[in-house]
């Protein structure tokens, strides 16, 4: 014994003969390299999203540029790139400028820098909000002191210099500083009043509308119950007509009040001059935010940056989702994911329990297991199609036929809805939960089960009191994977309820607070919609990154909660903390 160890030691000391492979050194490098590559890719992706997503809302300085052809423009720089200008590019310049341009480019080894300026000022007649300019187009640049960025509630940003402040048709100030001072004084009051009017309209008029619909449905259900032209039906129609008449007066009164408020709020406006000398009036109520971009200090910039993020997180989207916020999408994503989790975890755990604890292990169970695993490989769009056909049309349609006949042909359940989307995603993530739970169940030591049985516990008591608590951390792992998968899915929910713009939130203050039949917005779908369905791709691009950043953040947050719970469970059930 001592001899053999002795020779072993001797061999160890002279490594020369053992090959690189035998010592496993090369495997260290291989595995390390694989890890580095994966981490680099992940960090690269996250880095791009983080950098581009977080700078979207930073208030930029406004530059005014005079071009060689005499035009001038003002805006925010959004992109800079190098390119090799073709010969014909110079032909488009005026003859006198061509030589200078050629010289500039050839001095730069044939390359030129191209800038993309967000010049805003879109209007019904002017759709393009961006201008591309190459370095040889630029004659001079300035930073006008009074350049102002205005975020409008419609048509996006407006860049210009204030020339006057108007109350009605009367000019209250005629120089930039005074006009700006007046703007800051009146802006909050005007918008507040405007919003009050909108709120009144929504609440009161909306309430009247709901009442009207209720009465109409009542008449309709009498018709369905007793038949058309029955005495009951005639009676119901009469009641309905009387109600309609009484409501008319109330409606008119409300309209007048709302109109008055709107007129009062709408009389303030700011007269602006754009870089190309056009004067335009912007109503204060149409301005969501305005700042004199080149006069901002660092703290003010941070203030605007935070305010913009706040708006993005809390406001509803405007302007085909290019302006405003994504609050409905955030809420939709969270509600959808949580509801999905609520559905999939109990289902998956019960299924895994049967497979692992009750079913007789054999060919059939193996087949079921293979089928479940294969389910994870089915393209997610297929789940969407299945959800649309089965949940929305078959189940939802049947519910409508039985319980909501009076509102047909308008579907109540038989359409895309958050409940169907949750169910579809639950189905999609079911394999993940089942597989993870099964792993966790099989990792529960048999000695635990035996100990429980020996105490005289039944199978179910053993499962409930010993096995399940022990397996809970593993179940949570499945849940985390399901959340990560489910929250990011776009393809299936497109078909079963995600909407570009959902007027009502799936969760709100109105009874019964959770509205399972409503459509919803979703961050993933929002990314797709803004990024690929928008008619203003350049303005959409930064928002895509920001929304992605947000979605990653939310998934991370949901996971973090689950991970914390799991850590607690682990301490309790595995380490005895």
């Amino acid at each position, binding site marked *: 014994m001592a001899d053999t160890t002795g020779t072993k030691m001797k061999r160890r000391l002279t490594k020369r003969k053992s090959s690189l492979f035998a010592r496993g050194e090369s495997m260290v490098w291989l595995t390390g390299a694989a890890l580095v590559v994966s981490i680099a890719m992940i960090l690269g992706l996250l880095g791009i999203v983080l950098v581009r997503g977080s700078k979207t809302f930073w208030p930029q300085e406004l530059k005014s540029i005079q071009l060689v052809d005499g035009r001038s423009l003002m805006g925010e720089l959004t992109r800079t790139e190098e390119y090799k200008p073709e010969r014909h590019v110079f032909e488009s310049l005026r003859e006198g400028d061509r030589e200078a341009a050629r010289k500039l480019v050839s001095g730069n080894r044939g390359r030129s820098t191209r800038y993309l300026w967000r010049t805003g000022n879109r209007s019904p007649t002017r759709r393009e909000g961006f201008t591309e300019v190459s370095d040889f187009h630029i004659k001079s640049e300035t930073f006008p002191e009074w350049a102002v960025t205005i975020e409008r509630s419609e048509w996006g940003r407006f860049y210009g210099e204030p020339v006057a402040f108007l109350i009605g048709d009367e000019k209250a100030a005629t120089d930039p500083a005074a006009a700006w001072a007046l703007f800051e004084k009146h802006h909050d009051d005007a918008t507040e009043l405007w919003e009050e009017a909108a709120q009144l309209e929504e609440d009161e008029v909306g309430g009247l509308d709901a009442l009207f619909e209720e009465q109409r449905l009542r008449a309709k259900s009498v018709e369905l119950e007793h038949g058309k032209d029955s005495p009951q039906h005639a009676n119901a129609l009469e009641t309905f007509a009387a109600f309609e008449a009484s409501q008319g007066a109330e409606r008119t009164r409300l309209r007048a009040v709302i109109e008055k408020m709107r007129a009062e709020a709408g009389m303030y406006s700011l007269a602006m001059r754009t870089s190309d000398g056009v004067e335009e009036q912007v109503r204060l109520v149409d301005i969501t935010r305005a700042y004199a971009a080149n006069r901002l200090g660092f703290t003010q910039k941070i203030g605007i940056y935070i305010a913009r993020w706040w708006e993005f997180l809390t406001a509803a989207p405007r302007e085909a989702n290019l302006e405003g916020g994504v609050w409905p999408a955030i809420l939709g994503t969270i509600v959808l994911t949580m509801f999905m989790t609520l559905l999939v975890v109990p289902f998956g755990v019960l299924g895994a329990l049967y497979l692992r604890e009750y079913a007789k292990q054999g060919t059939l169970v193996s087949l079921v297991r293979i089928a479940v695993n294969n389910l994870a490989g089915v393209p997610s769009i297929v789940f969407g199609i299945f959800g649309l056909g089965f949940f929305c049309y078959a189940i939802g349609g049947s519910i409508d036929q039985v319980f909501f006949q009076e509102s047909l042909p308008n579907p109540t359940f038989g359409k895309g809805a958050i409940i169907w989307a949750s169910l579809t995603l639950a189905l999609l993530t079911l394999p993940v939960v089942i597989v993870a739970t099964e792993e966790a169940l099989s990792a529960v030591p048999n000695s635990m089960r035996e100990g429980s049985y020996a105490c*005289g516990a039944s199978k179910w008591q053993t499962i409930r009191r010993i096995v399940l608590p022990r397996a809970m951390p593993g179940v949570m792992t499945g849940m985390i994977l399901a959340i990560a998968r489910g929250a990011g899915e776009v393809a299936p929910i497109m078909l079963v309820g995600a909407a570009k713009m959902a007027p009502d939130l799936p969760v709100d203050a109105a009874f019964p607070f959770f509205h399972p039949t409503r459509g919803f917005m979703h961050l993933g779908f929002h990314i797709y919609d803004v990024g690929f369905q928008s008619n203003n791709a350049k303005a959409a691009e930064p928002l895509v990154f920001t929304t992605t950043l947000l979605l990653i953040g939310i998934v991370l947050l949901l996971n973090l909660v689950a991970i914390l719970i799991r850590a607690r469970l682990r301490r309790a059930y595995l380490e005895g903390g």
Partner: protein
Amino acid sequence: MIEDGDMQDDSTQAPVESELVASPEPRPAAARSEERPLADLPAGQHGARMGGVFEAVSRGVAFDTEVHATMAGKDCVIEIEQFNLWYGTAQALHSNSMGVPAGQVTALIGPSGCGKSTLLRCVNRMNDLIPTVTTKGDMRLSGDDIYGPGVDVIELRKRIGMVFQKPNPFPMSIYENVVYPLRIDGLRDKRILDEVVEKSLRGAGLWEEVKDRLEDNALRLSGGQQQRLCIGRAIAGEPEVLLLDEPCSALDPIATGRIEDLIQELKGHYTILIVTHNMQQAQRASDYVAFMYLGRMVEYGPTQDLFLNPHLKETEDYVTGRFG
């Protein structure tokens, strides 16, 4: 049935039957221990005779258990009669018969794989959990059939406490561990539960160490404490019998000593059947010892007799360490 099982192992059974006779008095292989008059064996026999047992076993032939005469007429809580067990088609227990005397400690010894744990686990039907297991033969707990039709396994297990090789406290508080057998019966009365916890933990010799931290997680106890907790849990339900399956094999010598002392204290209140690898432990802690070999019970008698004055040469070889 036994012969059938053996024939699977050895197709040349006929010649073996006549060759089995290495013992002084040739007996037919199918003879059963209880058929044989115990008086055959002189009580104070000196010098063990050759049993021919190992040879018989290697040939797959049945033989009789050498039961010491002093075992007769004991008041037995567990009676095992002609008990056979198969894992699938492989037979692990071959017509074992023994009675476990009430209020005493009975140890099962034998080399690894001899079936002592299997036999122990048959007493509270833990082997039911393995789907391939089939059994034949009788076992009785205080006269009640263990394997009879219509026996409620759960009720049976509540009458038998069991402690396993590796301490297996449940991942919950010390308190909850002890009251687990009562909890699953739906008992909620805090006063009764408190009483049971104190009584059981005192019984398991753990009370003084943990009385101030009953709400701590049981997994934070040391190995020896965990095992004593498991004993406390096993006696919390006031069982008639305590089954100990190598309770000290995962423990250090000090913790082992504690458990052995505990066994002595519990003796009298409970009938204890213990499986052990450790010959010294069997000698120190038990009143009766059964020596098993390859699924067969070779010799069964009072501990002192079996160790100091074994009837069979094979037993002597094993207990003196010359074999096994």
